[in-house]
Each structure stands twice: as structure tokens, then as C-alpha cells.
């Protein structure tokens, strides 16, 4: 049962996941956390953190991890969890894989297609909104437990945006700060 749901959810994410890993987060969160309750919001945040710190694309890292955790939360043994993570990683790639095979046949016609480029005049600004909504939905009492959380958020935000500190270094420093502050 949960395996069909995971397959369906991740195929959808693969079809509509425009605008890269961060824009995808709002799609993932909408289904995986809000609609199907596969994992909690806190687990989701932790998975995003780990996906950023480990090698590879965030889309695959998070799909693998969410597939594993969702099956585990449903009470299955680790072997089924591994199957769940393979399923979600496969499903998220399948739609664009098929699309690429189709496009490759008529590559040059697709390259300069006015129809597609005009769709992107609307899609591009909307993906910014998608990313913003992902951030806004994570700003809740599970992730922001006290005033220190807001302080950490502010410092990290300025570090990344203003001083161009590497995201991984920022996460590591925030983890170290957590050890000291809590």
C-alpha cells in the first residue's frame, strides 16, 4: 500500500519538479509531509540538512532518504526500507528520463521552441515563490523552538547571502552552535 503511494507521489514530483532541488522541496513537502503524513516536518528538515551535506544531487539524496524513512515509519523491516528508497529514487527520475528520450529525437526543434520558452516566462518567477513557500512552511514551532533559533536563522541567512559562506560550512557551524547553546 505505502509502496504504491510512494511511487505515485514521486512520479508526480518527477513530472512537476521544475526549477531545481529547492523548488522541488515545496512539492515534496506538500505530499510527503502534509497530505500523506509519511514523515514529520522535523524529519523532513533533518533530511534536507543531511541531503545538503552529503555528495550528490539533493533531489536524489532526499528521495532515497524519504523513501527509507517513510517505509520505516510504516513499521516495515530494514529490507523493505531499502526497497522503498530504491523505489522513490527510481520514480523521481523516470518521467524526465522518458521526456529526454523523446526530446532527443527532435532535439534541434525543441531547443528553439517558442512555446516552451514562453511557458518559462511564467514558470521562472513562480519557482522563486515555490522556494519561498518551502522556507516559510519550515518556519514553525517544530524547527524554531525559542529565540535562539531565530538568532541562528538570522546569522545563517546573513552568512550565506552577504558573506557567501559555503552552505555546508554554515550547517556545520550551526550544528556546533547547537551543541553549545542547548
Amino acid at each position, binding site marked *: 500500500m505505502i509502496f504504491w503511494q510512494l511511487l505515485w507521489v514521486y512520479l*508526480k514530483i*518527477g513530472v512537476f519538479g*521544475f526549477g*531545481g*532541488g*529547492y523548488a522541488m522541496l*515545496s512539492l515534496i513537502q506538500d505530499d510527503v509531509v502534509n497530505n500523506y503524513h509519511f514523515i514529520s516536518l522535523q524529519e523532513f*528538515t533533518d533530511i*534536507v*540538512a543531511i*541531503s*545538503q*551535506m*552529503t*555528495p*550528490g*544531487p*539533493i533531489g*536524489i*539524496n532526499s528521495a*532515497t*532518504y524519504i523513501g*527509507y*524513512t517513510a517505509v*520505516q515509519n510504516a513499521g516495515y523491516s530494514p529490507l523493505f526500507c531499502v526497497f522503498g528508497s530504491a523505489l522513490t*529514487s527510481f520514480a523521481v*527520475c523516470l518521467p524526465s*528520463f522518458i*521526456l*529526454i*528520450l523523446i*526530446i*532527443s529525437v527532435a532535439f534541434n526543434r525543441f*531547443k528553439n521552441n517558442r*512555446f516552451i520558452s*514562453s511557458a518559462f516566462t*511564467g514558470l521562472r*518567477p*513562480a519557482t*522563486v*515563490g515555490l*522556494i*519561498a*513557500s518551502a*522556507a516559510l*512552511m*519550515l*518556519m514553525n514551532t517544530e*524547527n524554531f523552538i525559542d529565540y535562539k533559533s531565530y538568532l*541562528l536563522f538570522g546569522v*545563517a541567512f546573513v552568512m550565506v*547571502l552577504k558573506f557567501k559562506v*559555503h552552505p555546508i560550512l*554554515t*550547517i556545520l557551524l550551526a*550544528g*556546533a*552552535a*547547537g*551543541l553549545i547553546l542547548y
Partner: protein
Amino acid sequence: MYWTLFLTFLRIGAFTIGGGYAMLPLIEREVVKHKWLSKEEFFDVFAVTQSLPGVFAVNISVFVGYRIRGIRGSLICALGTILPSFIIILAIALFFTQARQNSWVEKIFKGLRPAVVALIAAPCVSAIKSMKITLQMAWIPLLSAGLIWLVGVSPIWIILAAGFGGITYEYIIKRK
């Protein structure tokens, strides 16, 4: 040949931290070095890949693989890109389930979580600058974010509406 393709993309998948766009220069260098594609061909592929849904790094490896060795090539390149992530995450998932109850780990993650939110929020600001989103266009991201966050609209509807909106704008409103 297939083995070289697989190993090359395996290396790219295993050693780039920070997601799709961080992988791009590495893929470019390898692909051009092996003379699989010319620089121009690579940028054509890159331009098309940007307008596709899904995981960017996987898409670009599928594309490159297909251009070099057809469907089998695309499967091998995709597998090479995905496999390191998959194995590393599985190892962490197995370990982290036990580590989660540890009070040290709990403290670290209490500090981490707000920073992760900041990492997601920061690209919004830089994207507004790099996409040159003007004041007249600012309602699009604001409305999208508001509808998802406050009203609970599914992001899928926002994506569909934005795509059709762009087409309507270019074909009907601009033409008048």
C-alpha cells in the same frame, strides 16, 4: 567504453557536494576532455536540460549518455550519477535511526534546523536579482508563495498556472 562512462559519472556523483549546479563544471570538463561532446553541444544540452522537470544532474547525465551511446548509454550515466548518493544515504539512514536518540545529536540538530531554513530562504533573494524580477513581476512569486503557504494550494497547480500564464502572456497579450 561503457565502463569509462559509468566510472566517470560515478566519480562526478561521489565527489560533488551541494547539488546539481555544483556538478555542472565537473561534467563539462569530463565530457569535453573525453571528446564525447564539443563545448557547444554541451551548452545546447545544458540549455534544454534547464527547462526539464526532475533532478538536474541526472537529466544532464541522461542527455549526455544518450548522445554518446543511445539508451544504454543514458541508463549507464544515470546509474553512475545516482549510485553514490543512494549508497551513502542508505548508510546514513541505517546509522542515524540509532543516533537520533543521542542527546548530542539532538542538540546539534536543534541548532541545524533554523540554519537549513535560512539556506532555503537565501536563494530566493539571489534569484530575484539574477532573474531580474522587476516590481511589475514581483506579484508572481508573492502570490505563488502566499497561495501555497497560507491557502494550502498544491504547488502543482501553481506550476500549471504559471506555465499557461506565460504562454497566454507571450502569445495573446504581447501580440496585441
